[in-house]
């Protein structure tokens, strides 16, 4: 009897310790987010004080967020981000899916060679191609445009690989039945394979959108004109403009840029974790 009480007490203590440790780690992970949002709600006087306050005494959100949206064309940057990430994902699917289908379900000479090539291309680190792509785009005259932001990522070799692996698991009978119904091979890709592959396409989409919404390296290289700035470039431009003194609006801008993905993440956690950890397969 007393032993079971001791055991229970031990379990309780263990559980309490688990929560204390995890809350500490969570505090480390969340601190920048909390501080960003809290600061975006504070008036300048409270921000520049050396005393830590976790909630604004005077609510200054409207002023900060209006300043963020009016000082720099932040709405424009966000719109650019949507245009660029959506276009990249759309083109990736458009180009990768037929290729993946051919590699998974069709027989032709050189299939192994093409697959090996795909595998080889997955190994190329994306930062490594920035120099030649920059030179190439310079001579094509397409630097500083949406095309410059989108074109390098239209081909997703990783997407081809991923979708090919998925298509391998689709039974051949399904494809044969579609052929007997007189659906063309091109039709099979979109009307038969795509519907079965929605989970994989979703994962690829999350992976792709997160990567390109957050990307800073390539947009920084490809753009000079702020008309095409993506959110990540926008927030840095905003900081440089404000010379780092106007923290309320700056934190408001950062919040607005981080918010879309975080909202989506909180709504579909499992899918997001799945999609982002995909990059580990590379």
């Amino acid at each position, binding site marked *: 009897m007393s032993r079971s009480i001791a055991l229970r007490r031990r379990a309780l203590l263990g559980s309490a310790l688990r929560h204390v440790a995890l809350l500490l780690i969570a505090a480390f*992970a969340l601190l920048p987010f909390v501080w960003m949002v809290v600061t975006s709600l504070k008036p300048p006087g409270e*921000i520049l004080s050396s005393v830590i306050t976790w909630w604004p005494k005077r609510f200054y959100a409207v002023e900060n967020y209006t300043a963020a949206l009016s000082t720099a064309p932040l709405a424009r940057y966000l719109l650019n981000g949507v245009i660029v990430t959506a276009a990249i994902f759309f083109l990736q699917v458009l180009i990768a899916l037929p290729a993946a289908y051919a590699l998974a379900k*069709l027989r032709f000479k050189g299939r192994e060679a093409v697959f090996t090539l795909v595998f080889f291309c997955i190994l190329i680190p994306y930062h490594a191609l*920035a120099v030649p*792509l920059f030179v190439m785009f310079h001579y094509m005259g397409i630097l500083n445009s949406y095309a410059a932001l989108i074109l390098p990522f239209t081909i997703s070799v990783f997407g081809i690989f991923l979708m090919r692996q998925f298509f391998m698991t689709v039974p051949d009978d399904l494809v044969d039945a579609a052929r007997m119904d007189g659906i063309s091979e091109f039709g099979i890709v979109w009307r038969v394979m795509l519907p079965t592959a929605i989970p994989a396409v979703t994962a690829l989409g999350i992976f792709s959108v997160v990567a390109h919404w957050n990307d800073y390296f390539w947009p920084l290289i490809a753009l000079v004109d702020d008309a095409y700035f993506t959110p990540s470039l926008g927030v840095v431009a905003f900081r440089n403009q404000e010379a780092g003194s106007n923290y309320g609006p700056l934190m408001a801008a950062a919040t607005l840029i981080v918010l879309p993905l*975080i909202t989506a993440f909180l709504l579909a956690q499992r899918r997001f974790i799945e999609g982002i*950890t995909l990059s*580990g397969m590379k």
Partner: protein
Amino acid sequence: MTDHAITDRAITNRAMTDRTALPAAAAGNARPAKARAPARKAARRQARTAYALLAPALLLMAGLLILPLAAIFALALTDYQLGAQAIAFIGIDNFKALAVDPVFWQALGNTLLYAAMVVPGSIGLGLVAALLIESGTSLRSFYRAALFLPVMATLIAMAIVWEFMLHPTFGLVNAMLGVFGIAPHNWLLDKATALPVLAVIGIWQQFGFAMVLFLAGLVSIPRQLYEAAALDGVPGGWERFRLITWPLLGPVSLFILVISATRAFQVFDVVYALTKGGPSKSTEVMLYSIYTEGFEFFRTGYASALTIVFIVLILAVTLIKKTVLEKRVHYA
């Protein structure tokens, strides 16, 4: 009835040979000579379709991946500068220049040092977090979401938040450390602390990634193993971790190690936003060098040589994973 079935099958067979090549190749020998010709025709048609479906992907792969990759190796052997009229083949002079360039060695050293801090830091913290989350049932998804948040937040925006938190006079970090009696410090302007501080930001950003992969690995360890171990007298806690959990996490750990190292080698955003490689080159890293050489000074040839070193660095880690994976880890 039987007749019906036979005709049905005959029709199906014909339809198959017409429309698919898969059975044609497999059953080619068993088929009468007459059937082979259409089968071969169908196979040819299928091959044509395949090439058509692959064409856009292959074209873009060639133009956007293979050609640029080849161009790097070619450019690295030239003195090319963007916009210059002349271009000359200079052999391995760029690499010779690299070898005696102190900034290059500094960048390489800093990149490795940064990785040496971030990789164990994020893997260690990720493993601890995963074990803690797995060890109980309450609030699992809250903790998982909270710790994963930095992984997917726009790093450059969060870097600016970190910069604000690290502000020497009214930053949160100094204020919090002040509570413990630690004097305020200008973390990003001190040669000794700038890179370690960037590494802390790197760990903050990456450990959630390691955590979710460890969580996946932990879930795949069969419960029976723990039960069997308990019967064999293995106590809980550390012994259980050392004898069962850790060895079974082997493949996952190696995988996480490679990904973390690759990501650490690619550090750029925080350096660009917070330190620009300074103070006095103490945070100069590979990608930042490539960026300044290639896109600020437009010394394309030299930047290409740097890029090749960078590629070798990344591929080395990937190859280690491949060989070790094939040799050693066959548990799961």
